[in-house]
């Protein structure tokens, strides 16, 4: 087993990567909250969701986190009556993305909280390492 402190910062940086991927997907959702199709009756942008998975790193002896899969949300689309829209169907209804702003923002809040937690861990590990190095410094 290698140094546990290095393993700790590895786990934390993996956490940072996972949370930033989540943030990226969330911003895609928010940016595309009004993206409709082009042709009559076509499907609009479908909301993406991220799922995480714990992966055990045998060499380091820690549980790392990885992005397991980015999938499409199968929830039904919103519809709105806009007869003049290019994506309107025969009855004049346009399908809008199944993105809910409130859900996205709450998710974003959680992602940023987890990101901060991971940076805090890295800070603390660095402080511990420098404390050990300080033992060698002649006083």
């Amino acid at each position, binding site marked *: 087993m290698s*140094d*546990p*402190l290095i*393993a*700790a*910062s590895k*786990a*934390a940086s*993996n*956490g940072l990567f*996972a*949370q930033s991927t*989540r943030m990226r997907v969330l911003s895609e959702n928010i940016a595309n909250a009004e993206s409709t199709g082009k042709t009559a009756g076509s499907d609009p942008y479908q909301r993406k969701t991220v*799922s*995480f*998975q*714990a992966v055990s790193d045998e060499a*380091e*002896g*820690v*549980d*790392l*986190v990885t992005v397991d899969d980015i999938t499409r949300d199968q929830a039904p689309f919103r519809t709105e009556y806009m007869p003049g829209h290019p994506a309107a169907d025969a009855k004049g209804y346009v399908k809008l993305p199944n993105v809910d702003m409130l859900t996205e923002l709450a998710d974003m809040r*959680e*992602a940023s*909280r*987890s990101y901060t*937690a*991971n940076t*805090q*861990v890295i800070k*603390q*590990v660095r*402080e*511990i390492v420098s*404390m*050990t190095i*300080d*033992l060698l410094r002649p*006083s």
Partner: protein
Amino acid sequence: MQPMQLFDLAFRQNEWLAQRQSVISSNIANANTPGYKAKDIESFDDVMRSSVSMASTDDQHFAPAETGAVRNQDNGSGEADVLVSGNDVNIEQEFLKSSEVMRSYTLNSQLMKTFDRMLQSVTKA
């Protein structure tokens, strides 16, 4: 107590603390992973009890088999709420543990420094 033994003990605890810190960071990294259960390691008392070897005064004495490896174990149930996703990591609790690690590590390092200075003041004279 001999100062050398104290250095050994302090280093041993620092090793244990580093191991604990890595388990804590695993927990925090997996704070949003469905089905992940928070982990902790054996308490230092248990590790010491199993790892401090008995003195062998004869060649025919057995060496203890267990080397006192640090094992991961699940957090006791009921310490934190289990979310719908099956995840029971409590970030506040992890930070509490982390600051505990920090405090002990600082104490150990300072103690070692002090003893190092005492030794030096004798050897340099």
